[in-house]
């Protein structure tokens, strides 16, 4: 186990049913805090993104998304969270394909909304 301090500057509200599962937001996100679901689908049968701690409210997802899925909020004060991670690797260090797979599995496992 290792401890990491994560600074979160905002969140996105995700319009799950508007999403058409294209994956563009995943690589567009600089801190890599978006992950596509693997098994869960929206009302139209598409996978959709799920948000983790660490959003910087940079709007990259909103700007690249073809389906206007994201509403971006910036906190007045950044929030700091200390987390315990099972593996000593920050998401950004991981290779993209590797990260996507691991992230999806995690998104499905956690009881996400």
């Amino acid at each position, binding site marked *: 186990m290792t401890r*990491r301090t*994560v600074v*979160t500057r*905002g*969140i*996105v*509200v*995700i*319009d*799950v049913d*508007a999403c*058409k*599962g*294209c*994956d*563009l937001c995943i*690589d*567009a*996100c*600089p801190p890599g*805090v978006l*992950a596509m679901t693997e098994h869960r689908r929206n009302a139209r049968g598409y996978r959709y993104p*799920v*948000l*983790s*701690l*660490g*959003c910087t*409210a*940079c*709007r*990259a997802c*909103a*700007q*690249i*998304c*073809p*389906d*206007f899925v*994201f*509403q*971006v*909020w*910036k*906190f*007045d*004060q950044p*929030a700091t969270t200390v*987390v315990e*991670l*099972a*593996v000593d690797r920050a*998401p950004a260090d991981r290779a993209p394909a590797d*990260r996507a797979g*691991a*992230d999806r599995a*995690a*998104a499905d496992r*956690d009881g996400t*909304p």
Partner: protein
Amino acid sequence: MTLPVVPSDRPPDQPARLVDDFTPPLILPGEHHMCPGCGEPAAMRSTVEIIDELGLTSRAIGVFGIGCYTGFSGALDVEVLQALHGRAPSLATGVKRARPDTVVFTVQGDGDMVNEGLQEVIHAAARAENITCLLLNNGVFGETGGHMTATTVLGQRTKNTLEGRDASRHGYPILIADLLAGIEGSAYVARGATNSAGNVARTRRMLKAAFAAQAAGLGFTFVEVLTMCPTGWFIDTAEAPGYLAEHLAPVHAIGVLKDVADDG
């Protein structure tokens, strides 16, 4: 492992401000009919956001060509004149000459602008027409199902070049931005893309420069935006950004090709 998931179904509890709404102010809410992974909506969003940022909204008139993006002509809260395939630059010319205080832009695909309407955009540039022409270039005729256009790159598989574009049969792609940059009436010519956050940001800067140049009366301005078309390229949505980078961008190079405002 990854960081803990957080709720994303409602605005935050802590004090925060809205930075970006789902739909930008100048796009009317509702569904469009672009395919999953289409690169055009990002280009449309960036365009209207830049117009708004520059304070040009109440002077803006868009002239749309015919293609997948035509659906946006009814979806923008911007005055729109719908043109025919290839004809937007001449209509835009008439609008701007009759109403010189407006900010006029065209929205056209590669089939529209570089096939059907090649002479129109070249003549508009030569006349230094004070309009901004926008090209959404995905290397195919998207709306009819993914056929070859004048910008399709060699080797690209399309519905009517299933073995890949072959120079001996189909000739070579036209690099329209490069052509226009060589015309004296052009004031700003740039090529961006919407396949990555970085490229979207660059494209936004190009759009800003182009519209600012129109507002300053510098001449013809042009922004080409390479967009993903996973449907027309016969690939998965997740592969489309890479496809654009590997196949389109090496031929239709991203960057600012001409900027008369930048004499350095």
